[in-house]
């Protein structure tokens, strides 16, 4: 492309030659020959140059040459010619100069037009190149290349303003700089580019210094000579800058071109930006549409889940009502039983009173009787003694011997009568105790003194000692205590042939006093230990027994020790001697009932005392609970015991919260969800059993292990209600530590264990699969023996038991489990294929928590029950397991109560379909042809239709089309039953409006699948 204003030097040379030639000719010819006219030729030629000054200059030069030619030319041969020539030359000069000026005007106009043409052509070219949907980068590139080629620039770049007003390099031309460099970002007003944008005017820079962009080619690099920076604008707002670099100085025409290109390029840039933005927005909108779809789908799923939950809730509500009703019934039955019980109680009470009266009569009678007996016996004894003395000396040896016998026998009789009297006194409640300070050493000394002679006689060693640090004094009834010691010593001496008898006093636990009598006598077999304390019994009950005596001594001892608030124990084995130990409180226990005074042994309620201590709550950790710590809830109103428990809890790294009443306890269970509970039974507001029951009925709390501590023995009831342990007060520290250890174990043991007792390997595996998940460890045993061994070895949370076992049956296994002395037996679920008689069921009920008869639906119930007994908190179950459980419960609810219409004329097919679908719980209707089907659909409103195609009267296709035409049933799922005969059967069915099809002969599994899929929810 040629730029306007470029001159052709040849032209000037030509002009110079012509002027020179003309001048030479003019000088050579004489005046008058008007050769100077030739000067007009170069002048006219000069019009073809592009410099407006050229014709003027040539005109003036020629004019001066005309004058010079006149002077230098030889004179004219003819006179007068000189004057004419002068005039001619003068006119010629003026004409030349005038023509020069006209020429200047002409050239100026021509040049301007050429520039304009060039600019216009450039714009047209540019707009041609900018056409088409381009992005900014492409657009910039084509603008740059077009401009650079058109104006002859060697290097260039284009900057485009972004949203923030900053200029970014969009494209480059012949540039040796990457597009994404730092230099490509220009803030408005900064650098020349920014300045141009800010001023909105073209800037030309000459003599570009070092460090500017180089123009590079394969062989070298050079700096551009000049830079032109031009803004582009759209509607007056600058939106870009074009920078071009030149080796030659740029022309003014280029400025014009850049100025006039500013608007179209600017608008093109703006549209490209709009387009890009539009594309972005479109993409964004589509993305949002996709995401919306995702969210909609999620929402749908959530909705469905909610619906499902609502459904389940309704279901459980119904069940609840049912349970309520049953409970009411049970309550009524209980009331009746209670009535019966209280009337029975009345009868019993009356009987008891009678018995008591009779017993009192008996005791009184015995007391009176023995008194009456003792009086004559005394006289008899005295008389016998007199006879033995034989003061007169008139009796033979034999007669004296008889009298001695009478005396001995009488003495024995007297002892017996005294014993009976004592015993009956105690039983009749007529024995009064007098507590006083007893000096143990003195008591022992007296006893020693008494039995020393007897022992010496039998050559026995009698040792009486009090341990160092042992008790010195105690509060007791000295007479009765002495009687006990005497009885025991007397027995010991009586039954010991050789060796020693030891009476020892020592300190027992909790400040009690231990008095033991040890002998090296015959000893008592273990199975008779319980007999020796019974009245009138001796260990050796045979007729030819070796030792005399009434056998009342030990029973009197026991009764007396009981009265004194202590207990008596025996340790003995045949041939190894015996040790009788009496444990007595060092001071009488006020709270302990004294049978001597109350007679019945009923416990005195001591709530009054407790109410006093529970006034001030015991300080606990409720204010300082740390998350994740193990919290044990102590439900105890006894301040002292609660404190002990709290300290023990702290020692074993539990945090402890103390509740003084049942109400508070339940509140705390609900809010704190403690890891374990220690529960007292006697609480001021409710019984501990109520707390136990309510906690175990709360699904979210029932997994919390509860250990019961009580003075009452409710062990059986509490265990049945789900307590993990039971301890009778007074409780030893060791027992409590064991309880805490068990808590620890339960908390730590995440995996619950189930024992499956089942002889059939396949069944065993099936159950294992059914129940197994991450949190449940399953152990299995094929027979009862192995099951018992496993139950011995480890603790299970639940046992699933088949009744039909080889060898020991399930029944027997249950009985043996019940008999075992394990502290807590796991709940047992009997899972059996065997039909049970009513008796059998009742027998099972005693030990088993639930009974499941194997059948189609039983796996779900088993899963349900086991989950229940595993005490797994619902939230702890893995989500998929929960879903599975829910799905298992939903099994075939797809079919239950749903109506399926079978449209089929072949009776065998009807039968096959019915027998496949009816057991699933579906209600089956049958139509024998299309017409019938339409009526049925109107009448029965089926949920799904199975449509045969080939039928009399109206075929399946027509019927399907008819159904689809009717508005109400247009969405009714229809599954076509096609014969495989025709290849296009399928398409016809679908075209007619069937949702799916199944080919005959019908695969039942597949049909069920199809029904499941298409059955409306």
């Amino acid at each position, binding site marked *: 492309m040629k730029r306007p204003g470029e001159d052709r030097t040849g032209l000037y040379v030509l002009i110079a030659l012509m002027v020179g030639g003309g001048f030479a000719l003019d000088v050579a010819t004489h005046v008058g020959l008007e050769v100077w006219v030739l000067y007009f030729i170069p002048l006219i030629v000069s019009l073809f140059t592009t410099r407006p000054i050229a014709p003027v200059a040539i005109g003036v030069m020629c004019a001066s040459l005309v004058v010079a030619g006149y002077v230098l030319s030889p004179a004219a041969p003819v006179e007068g010619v000189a004057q004419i020539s002068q005039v001619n030359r003068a006119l010629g000069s003026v004409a030349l100069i005038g023509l020069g000026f006209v020429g200047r005007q002409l050239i100026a106009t021509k040049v301007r037009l050429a520039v304009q043409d060039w600019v216009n052509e450039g714009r047209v070219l540019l707009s041609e190149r900018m056409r088409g949907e381009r992005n900014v980068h492409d657009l910039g590139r084509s603008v740059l290349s077009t401009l650079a080629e058109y104006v002859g620039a060697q290097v260039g770049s284009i900057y485009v303003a972004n949203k923030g007003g900053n200029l970014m390099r969009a494209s480059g031309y012949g540039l040796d700089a990457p597009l994404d460099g730092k230099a490509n970002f220009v803030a408005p007003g900064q650098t020349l580019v920014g300045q141009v944008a800010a001023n909105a005017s073209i800037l030309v820079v000459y003599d570009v210094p070092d460090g500017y962009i180089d123009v590079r080619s394969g062989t070298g690099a050079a700096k551009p000579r000049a830079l032109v920076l031009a803004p582009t604008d759209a509607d007056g707002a600058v939106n870009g800058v074009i920078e071009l670099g030149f080796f030659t100085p740029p022309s003014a025409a280029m400025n014009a071109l850049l100025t006039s290109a500013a608007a179209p390029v600017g608008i093109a840039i703006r549209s490209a930006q709009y387009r890009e933005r539009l594309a972005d927005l479109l993409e*964004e909108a*589509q993305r949002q*549409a996709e*995401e919306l779809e995702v969210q909609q789908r999620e929402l749908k799923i959530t909705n469905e889940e909610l619906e499902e939950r609502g459904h389940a809730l309704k279901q459980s509500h119904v069940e609840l009502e049912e349970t309520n009703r049953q409970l009411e019934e049970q309550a009524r039955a209980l009331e009746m039983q209670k009535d019966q019980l209280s009337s029975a109680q009345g009868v019993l009470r009356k009987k008891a009173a009678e018995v008591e009266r009779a017993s009192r009569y008996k005791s009184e009678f015995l007391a009176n009787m023995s008194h009456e007996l003792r009086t004559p016996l005394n006289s008899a004894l005295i008389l016998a003694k007199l006879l033995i003395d034989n003061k007169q000396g008139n009796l033979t040896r034999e007669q004296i011997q008889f009298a001695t016998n009478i005396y001995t026998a009488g003495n024995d009789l007297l002892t017996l009568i005294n014993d009976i009297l004592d015993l009956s006194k105690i039983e009749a409640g007529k024995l009064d105790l007098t507590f006083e300070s007893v000096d143990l050493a003195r008591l022992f000394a007296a006893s020693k003194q008494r039995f020393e002679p007897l022992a010496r006689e039998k050559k026995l060693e009698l040792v009486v000692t009090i341990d160092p640090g042992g008790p010195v004094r105690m509060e007791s009834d000295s007479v009765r205590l002495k009687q006990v010691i005497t009885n025991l010593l007397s027995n010991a001496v009586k039954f010991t042939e050789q060796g020693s008898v030891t009476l020892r006093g020592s300190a027992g636990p909790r400040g009690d006093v231990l008095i033991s009598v040890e002998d090296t006598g015959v000893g008592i077999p273990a199975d008779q230990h319980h007999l020796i304390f019974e009245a009138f019994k001796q260990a050796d009950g045979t007729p030819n027994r070796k030792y005399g005596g009434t056998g009342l001594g030990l029973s009197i001892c026991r009764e007396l020790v009981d009265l004194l608030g202590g207990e008596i124990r025996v340790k003995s084995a045949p041939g190894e001697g015996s040790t009788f130990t009496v444990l007595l409180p060092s001071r009488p226990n006020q709270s302990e009932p004294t049978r001597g005074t109350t007679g019945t042994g009923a416990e005195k309620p001591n709530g009054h005392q407790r109410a006093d201590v529970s006034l001030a709550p015991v300080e606990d950790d409720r204010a300082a609970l740390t998350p994740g710590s193990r919290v044990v809830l102590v439900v105890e109103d006894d301040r002292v015991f609660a404190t002990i428990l709290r300290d023990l809890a702290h020692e074993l790294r539990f945090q402890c919260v103390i509740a003084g009443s049942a109400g508070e306890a339940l509140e705390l269970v609900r809010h704190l969800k403690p890891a374990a509970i220690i529960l007292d039974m006697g609480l001021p507001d409710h019984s501990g059993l109520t707390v136990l029951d309510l906690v175990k009925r709360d699904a979210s709390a029932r997994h919390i292990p509860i250990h019961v501590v009580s003075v009452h023995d409710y062990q059986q009831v509490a265990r049945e209600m789900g307590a993990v342990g039971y301890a009778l007060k007074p409780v030893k520290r060791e027992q409590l530590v064991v309880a805490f250890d068990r808590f620890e174990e339960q908390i730590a043991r995440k995996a619950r264990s189930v024992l499956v007792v089942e002889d059939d390997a396949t069944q065993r595996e099936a159950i294992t699969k059914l129940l197994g998940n991450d949190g449940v460890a399953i152990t299995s045993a094929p027979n009862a023996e192995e099951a018992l061994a496993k139950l011995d070895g480890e603790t299970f949370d639940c046992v699933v038991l088949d009744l039909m076992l080889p060898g020991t049956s399930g029944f027997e296994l249950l009985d043996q489990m019940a008999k075992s002395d394990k502290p807590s037996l796991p709940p047992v679920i009997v899972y059996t294929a065997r039909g049970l008689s009513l008796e059998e069921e009742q027998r099972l009920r005693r030990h088993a928590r639930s009974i499941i008869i194997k059948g189609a639906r039983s796996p779900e119930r088993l899963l349900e029950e086991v989950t229940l007994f595993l005490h797994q908190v619902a939230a702890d179950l893995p989500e998929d397991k929960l879903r599975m459980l829910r*799905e298992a419960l939903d099994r075939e609810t797809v079919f239950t109560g749903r109506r399926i219409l079978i449209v089929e004329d072949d009776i065998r097919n009807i039968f096959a379909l019915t027998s496949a679908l009816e057991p699933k719980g579906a209600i089956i209707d049958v139509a024998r042809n299309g017409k019938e089907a339409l009526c049925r659909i109107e009448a029965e409103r089926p949920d799904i239709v199975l449509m045969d195609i080939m039928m009399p009267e109206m075929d399946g296709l027509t019927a399907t089309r008819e159904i689809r035409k009717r508005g109400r049933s247009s969405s009714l799922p229809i599954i076509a039953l096609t014969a495989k005969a025709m290849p296009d059967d399928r398409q016809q069915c679908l075209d007619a409006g069937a*949702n799916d099809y199944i080919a005959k002969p019908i695969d039942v599994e597949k049909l069920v699948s199809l029904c499941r899929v298409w059955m409306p929810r």
Partner: protein
Amino acid sequence: MNATNESQDVELDLLLEGVFRMYHYDFRQYVRSSLRRRVHQALLALKHTSITSLLDRILHDPRAFAQFLPHMTIQVSDMFRDPSYWLALRKRVVPHLSTYPFPRVWIAGCGAGEEAYSMAILLAEEGLLARAQIYATDISVESLAEAKAGAYQLDRVRSFSDNYFESGGKASLSDYYVTTSSRACFVPALRERILFADHCLATDTAFAEVQLVSCRNVLIYFDRTLQDRAVGVFCDALSPRGFLGLGDKETLRFSAHMKAFEPFVAEEKIYRKGERAT
């Protein structure tokens, strides 16, 4: 407001960087607007008030990440979604595939496997499955596990069936599944020809030469750079004159690789690799 936006942007960057460094899931070049919405949803679902606290939890608790990830890779599909696309594949593309001795198909971003099974069914009905290999890849290992199971909720199967028939299915979809009480499980024979693998379009490269890439509604979540990268990977994987199928909302128009492909079935966004493209 601007400051909040900016700080949120910084938080988002840190989150994405953290996730990438810790778990090697690269979401850094996903479209911002979409990421912001997803992270926002994750915040709601995981009960966090700031992205930073979420990041803190994710970095220290892999289980929290497992909960977080599904929010980022959320993707839904149906079997034979957009039946016309599948019909076009069946009628126009499969005849070309059948000329290869061992046609290989890549389902990129297979999600829960719906498309992979659809493809297997389509190829089975066209008699190609026995000699074909389907690669089904996804970024999410959880999704892949679900895909391998090939068991879908029963109520979804109805729309699957409708789509199947519309896409020119030759039998009944029930030929390919068996049902349990809650799910329809697709038969193992289909799975035999599908290779499930985890593959990240942001970081991984092509792994095999395939004749058809079907990548639907995945690119839409990527920014331009990542889109270009992904299409580049597809371009590398495709044999000469191979096919690329995109989602109905996606296009190659602004892609750097636009010139490498020519529209094949333009209205279904099925492109064919150009002759001169490498």
